[in-house]
């Protein structure tokens, strides 16, 4: 029996704020296997981003156990197990795209020749070859976000954590990036955790959809997608797709009413 890449059992997180403690996560149990594409979906305040931040060791759970690659999240971060993609591209304006992608490599102390080789490879992977010498402001929003994905892929983390990476982009760019992300996932075999607001996005991308609801943040449903790994955009019009989307919507509504 293979061990899950991310294993959460009974994870609890309470933020101590000035007026009252906020129960951000309650009794979260979840196993994510290697190569899964997992979406976290739910209304704002349901703790989906908080859960992602716990996996990244940016927050520390106040209860339960959470392991990443069999290590504590903190150790996993030090072992460079994951790349994190934020809501905004967050590229440094004073660095070219190439230099931005080199940032984690510089910090992790890769040799110079290897840096150049890796930059070339990931730029190719996100279809930005030839843009390495440009500054971020010379690129569109979608291209900037692709560059930030390249930055997260530059070192060999086998987990990719993405916090609403396409939330600020328009629908058409979003569709294109979703399609590219699936191809990238297929080619690299990474485990991806993806936070989103959008039901179609979650259904289209995921092998596993985690439906969450707020106050306190908890998991209300985990849906294993029966869709094949190979997914053209047209798959969104098939009955299977619509059925899963329906189940996600039901799950969200249920969580909202309780």
């Amino acid at each position, binding site marked *: 029996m293979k061990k899950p890449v991310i294993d959460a059992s009974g994870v609890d997180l309470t933020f101590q704020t000035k007026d009252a403690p906020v129960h951000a996560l309650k009794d979260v149990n979840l196993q994510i296997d290697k190569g899964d594409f997992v979406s976290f979906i739910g209304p704002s305040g349901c703790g989906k981003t908080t859960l992602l931040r716990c996996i990244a060791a940016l927050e520390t759970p106040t209860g339960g156990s959470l392991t990443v690659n069999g290590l504590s999240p903190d150790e996993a*971060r*030090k072992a460079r197990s994951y790349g994190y993609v934020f*809501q905004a591209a967050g590229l440094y*304006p*004073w*660095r070219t795209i190439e230099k931005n992608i080199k940032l984690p490599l510089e*910090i992790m102390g890769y040799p110079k020749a290897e840096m150049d080789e890796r930059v070339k490879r990931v730029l190719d992977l996100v279809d930005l070859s030839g843009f390495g010498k440009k500054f971020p402001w010379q690129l569109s929003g979608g291209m900037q976000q692709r560059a930030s994905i390249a930055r997260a892929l530059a070192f060999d983390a086998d987990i990719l954590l993405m916090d609403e990476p396409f939330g600020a982009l328009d629908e058409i760019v979003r569709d294109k990036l979703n399609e590219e992300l699936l191809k990238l996932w297929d080619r690299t075999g990474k485990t991806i955790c993806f936070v989103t607001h959008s039901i179609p996005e979650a259904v289209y991308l995921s092998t596993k959809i985690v439906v969450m609801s707020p106050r306190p943040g908890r998991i209300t449903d985990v849906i294993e997608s029966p869709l094949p790994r190979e997914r053209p955009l047209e798959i969104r019009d098939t009955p299977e797709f619509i059925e899963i989307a329906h189940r996600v919507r039901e799950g969200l509504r249920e969580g909202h009413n309780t």
Partner: protein
Amino acid sequence: MRNILPILTVLLVIVAVWYAAAIKMNAAWTYAQANRAGTEVTFSEVVRDTLNQERPVLPAPHQVAAELWATTAQKKITSKRSLVFHGWVTLSATLLGFAIGTTAGILLAIGITHNRAMELGVMPWAIASQTIPILAIAPMIIVVLNSMGISGLIPKSIIAAYLSFFPVAVGMVKGLRAPDAMQLDLMRTYSASDNQTFWKLRLPSSMPYLFASLKVGVAASLVGTIVAELPSGATRGLGARLLSGSYYGQTVQIWSALFAAALLAASLVIIVGVIEKITLRKMGMAA
């Protein structure tokens, strides 16, 4: 080119007001002279006289311009009557003081952003230091340093540094804290050390803030140096020129020294601005 017209208009208004004020303020002397001599003066004679007095209350623009020309272009720069000579004395102390103040300000800012105790322990003193009138403290610093055998350039530079470190420190603290939570989180996901976060994120982010405060700092340095030249009985520097002018009622000399100081300050601020543009463009952040 479209900017030229408004600028010229403002300049013209200032010169016109200045001439009017010169006539009004200097007329009393002209009338008193005429009265003593028992003669009547016509208005055109009054105007001619008020604009050409040797020791006017307010010198006319052309008198200041002529004095500036005479004491810069027409004097050898080694002469004690050359404004270039005095300007250089002031400028050298200003630049040294600015360098000391900037270094101190940046180091202070780094300390404050890295250490909470330092913020609480040092920041109030830095603020208090700026509430003391520089005119009051400058003579004391000069006397104390003189008694220790330090005179000339250094005491003036220290006062210049005293005025310029503060804006640099405040601007730099703000700049080093400019990166938002997301950018800091990104560094955390790489397990970056404090040192790496400083060199790769905080320092580059602070550059626009640094340059804004350098412009304030360099002008403050010049003011500090001039103030330091006033009480020390100095015979060299723009401050000394101002003081000796006021001893002997040489208003034309005072005004030309004032203008020289203003031109110097403007040039320094412009130079910092040019360096800012070049640096930010090299960093890809051209404003």
